[in-house]
């Protein structure tokens, strides 16, 4: 796929999302001019971009949407719910097309009718059902068949000589069209240059420009409101002209010019065409009819004129094959004996070699004189006209090609890019490299230590340390910079909610007002992306199970419209997202019993479990509260999927709910997951890493303060009972925990999920930033470790997965 198209497709996704979110805003604040303008701009840009490619259906729908928006923006059409629905439908259609293009490089032809239907629907809302446009779309271009015979007023400007020439061409079987192009007033703002388009009309032989209205006084003249009409005469095919104007089919009228306009009498206009005559003339040596002779004479004359053109030899030689082909075709159509064809070929070859067509010309004259009885001489002006056409034909082609290039210059006005679009893999690579740098710079202090201890050069050691601090600073800044690049606002995920909430609440017959807060909060791209699906699921759940129908709400004395709040905020180095609804809340009793029924908990737990823990059971695997599996949520893959998705990116999830008042779900996520801060601990002479996210504090507990209750060890910490576990035991290391000289245990207080407990280790070490690599291959089966990291001195640090071992 070409890079431009790839970029267009990726941008179109963004545009469509922005359009949807703006529409939602607009629905909330009808008539807000800022939102409306922005919305219009999005659609307008998207339409403009689509025009770069050959996707007329997409452009057509976007164009119609743009027009409708413009009408709403200017107040010509009222903004209604139908407006939003229609635009959303249109954007969905466009999104579908882009996806198809992305998959196959193009979209199916079958979308054409749908495009017409949607565009028609949009235009119908403006109140001007443009029959021309629909008509055009069906026949593949603006056109009206069958001319009423009424000559347009502009026809009088067509020169007589041209009419005669055209008449001849029409009689030779060509078709001539009268094209009236009335560009819309705002077309300049869409980057159109109607004059250029008109000039490029295929087969254009004549053009006329008129103003639609009398010119206003100079002071009130608006040069950017297009009031010009373009009238063009073109000898071409209807399809070709229609294709040329395919982006503006509603502004173009294409009519076939009847011979009568060109001054043909009835008799003349019925002159049979060569092809027809040929078909009728099956018999071989029948004398040629006068009509055929006339035509042949004209063709011969034209060829002779071509050959006699005053041109350099090279051009003349180039014209020969064409002339030769015409003559041979004439022979074939009139069933001339083969000897004639041979003669033609021979003469042509000779002329090609010598560069002088004199012999061919002489033969033509002889042939004509002998076989065609002399006919009335063709009028001189026609001859002249023909000469003119032939002379300009080639030049015209070259110039129009040059013009096409100019055109691209006009439309491709240079804009300085303020932002770069970079492939994510490039950023990832840069981030990995910086990560490596961060780790390898950690080796320098070891080097300084060795310089001092092993080689006893203190000076050098000091210098190395000095250099290290410089590199350290730069590396940290680099790391910070790359993190900034990867940061994305949560609005990326949030912006799809207004549409989601609107659609779902309508489907469920609920009234919901969505409040989004802290959309500008930023987090790492991976985190944001990992957040999208769980959040959608949570929102669906809230709408489906949480919020009540307006009747129920009113009966309970609540406002009919429920409120769903999604709030994002940064707290220290984490992003916290809260989804709050004022619905019916979660009843722990129901959850408990349901969990028991489904075998998620046993009877003992059922009796003891606290309300807070009970509602968290909704996150347990295999738990789904929905009685009936609905279209929206409750597909049985409920909240446990949400929880595991959040935990995958080292996030935590918490739920609070009050029956009748509502539910609040908080998700806490790290800002970034590229670099992990771990605390190094020592046990039985080995070092391990513990993610700082889990570490609450480090304390020294005297051996005497450790109590044993049943078989579990406990200690009292600031009035709270903290269960203790020995790391050696957890890892099945057959060694006793060591105490310090003061007979104290080193206890690492950690939080796992919602539990707090102390892990007894031998010694605490420093905390370091590491790039955690996942365990791969055979090591991936080791659940006790979440990954490994390379230390500055080259050793490997195993990072403990506390959740698994405790």
């Amino acid at each position, binding site marked *: 796929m070409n890079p431009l198209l790839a970029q267009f497709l990726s941008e179109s996704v963004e545009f469509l999302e922005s359009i949807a979110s703006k529409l939602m805003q607009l629905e909330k604040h009808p008539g807000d001019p800022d939102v409306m303008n922005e919305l219009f701009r999005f659609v307008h840009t998207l339409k403009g971009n689509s025009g770069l490619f050959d996707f007329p259906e997409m452009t057509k729908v976007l164009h119609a949407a743009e027009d409708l928006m413009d009408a709403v923006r200017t107040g010509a059409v009222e903004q209604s719910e139908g407006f939003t629905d229609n635009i959303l439908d249109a954007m969905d259609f466009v999104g579908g097309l882009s996806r198809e293009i992305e998959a196959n490089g193009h979209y199916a032809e079958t979308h054409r009718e749908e495009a017409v239907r949607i565009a028609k629907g949009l235009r119908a809302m403006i109140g001007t059902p443009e029959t021309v446009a629909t008509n055009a779309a069906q026949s593949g271009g603006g056109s009206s068949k069958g001319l009423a015979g009424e000559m347009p007023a502009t026809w009088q400007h067509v020169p007589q000589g041209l009419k005669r020439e055209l008449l001849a061409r029409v009689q030779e079987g060509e078709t001539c069209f009268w094209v009236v192009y009335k560009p819309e007033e705002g077309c300049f703002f869409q980057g159109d240059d109607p*004059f*250029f388009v008109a000039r490029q009309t295929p087969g254009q032989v004549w053009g*006329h*420009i008129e*103003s639609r209205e009398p010119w206003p006084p*100079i002071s009130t003249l608006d040069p950017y409101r*297009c*009031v010009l009409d373009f009238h063009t005469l073109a000898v071409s095919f209807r399809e070709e002209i229609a294709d040329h104007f395919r982006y503006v089919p509603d502004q173009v009228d294409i009519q076939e010019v009847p011979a009568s306009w060109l001054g043909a009498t009835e008799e003349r206009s019925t002159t049979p065409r060569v092809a027809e005559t040929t078909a009728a003339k099956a018999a071989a040596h029948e004398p040629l009819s006068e009509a055929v002779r006339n035509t042949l004479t004209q063709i011969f004359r034209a060829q002779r004129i071509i050959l006699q053109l005053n041109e350099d030899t090279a051009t003349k030689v180039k014209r020969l094959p064409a002339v030769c082909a015409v003559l041979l075709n004439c022979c074939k159509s009139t069933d001339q004996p083969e000897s004639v064809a041979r003669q033609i070929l021979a003469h042509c070859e000779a002329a090609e070699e010598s560069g002088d067509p004199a012999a061919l010309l002489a033969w033509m004259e002889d042939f004509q004189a002998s076989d065609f009885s002399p006919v009335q001489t063709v009028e001189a002006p026609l001859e002249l006209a023909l000469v003119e056409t032939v002379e300009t034909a080639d030049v*015209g082609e070259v*110039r129009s090609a040059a013009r096409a290039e100019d055109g691209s210059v006009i439309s491709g006005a240079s804009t300085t890019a303020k932002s770069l679009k970079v492939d994510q893999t490039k950023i990832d690579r840069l981030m990995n490299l910086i990560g490596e740098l961060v780790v390898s710079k950690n080796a320098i202090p070891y080097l300084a230590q060795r310089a001092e201890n092993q080689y006893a050069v203190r000076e050098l050691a000091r210098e190395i340390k000095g250099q290290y601090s410089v590199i350290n600073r730069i590396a940290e800044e680099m790391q910070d910079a790359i993190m900034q690049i990867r940061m994305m606002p949560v609005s990326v995920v949030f912006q799809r909610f207004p549409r989601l909430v609107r659609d779902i609440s309508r489907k469920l017959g609920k009234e919901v007002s969505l409040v989004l807060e802290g959309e500008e909060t930023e987090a790492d791209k991976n985190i944001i992306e990992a957040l999208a699906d769980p959040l959608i699921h949570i929102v669906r759940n809230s709408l489906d199970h949480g919020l009540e129908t307006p009747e129920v709400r009113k009966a309970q004395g609540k406002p009919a419209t429920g409120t769903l709040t999604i709030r994002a905020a940064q707290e220290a180095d984490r992003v916290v997202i809260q989804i709050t609804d004022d619905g019916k809340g979660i009843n722990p009793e129901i959850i408990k019993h349901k969990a028991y029924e489904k075998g998620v908990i046993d009877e003992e737990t059922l009796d003891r479990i606290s309300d807070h823990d009970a509602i968290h059971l909704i996150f347990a695997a295999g738990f789904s509260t929905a009685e009936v599996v609905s279209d929206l949520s409750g597909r049985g893959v409920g909240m446990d999927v949400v929880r595991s998705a959040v935990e995958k990116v080292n996030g935590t999830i918490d739920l609070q709910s009050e029956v009748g008042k509502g539910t609040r779900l908080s998700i806490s996520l790290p800002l970034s997951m590229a670099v992990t801060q771990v605390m190094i601990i020592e046990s039985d002479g080995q070092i391990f890493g513990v993610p700082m996210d889990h570490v609450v504090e480090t304390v020294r507990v005297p051996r005497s303060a450790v109590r044993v209750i049943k078989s579990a060890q406990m200690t009292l910490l600031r009035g709270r009972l903290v269960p203790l576990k020995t790391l050696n035991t957890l890892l099945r290391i057959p060694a006793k925990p060591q105490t310090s000289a003061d007979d104290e245990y080193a206890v690492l207080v950690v939080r796992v999920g919602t539990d707090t407990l102390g892990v007894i280790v031998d010694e605490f070490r420093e905390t370091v930033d590491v790039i955690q690599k996942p365990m791969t291959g055979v090591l991936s089966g080791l659940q006790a470790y979440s990954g490994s990291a390379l230390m500055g001195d080259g050793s490997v640090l195993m990072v403990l997965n506390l959740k698994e071992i405790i």
Partner: protein
Amino acid sequence: MPIEYKKNQANFLDVATVEEAEPLLAWLQEKKKPKVDLKGCTHIHSANLQVLMALNVKINTWPEEERFRAWLQSALSH
């Protein structure tokens, strides 16, 4: 510079783009007897054409290319 403004004459060169329309209008309004030379011009944007038409500007020299000249003459010669 696609339009070269001399004392009383504007010389159009190559392609006059849509951005030229406003300065052109301003220039034409300023001058008492403005003249326009289209000799070196290969295309003018419709917006410029409108301006020339509306002010009924005198065209000194027409473009060389015949069809282009014909188009312009249909709109500008009175």
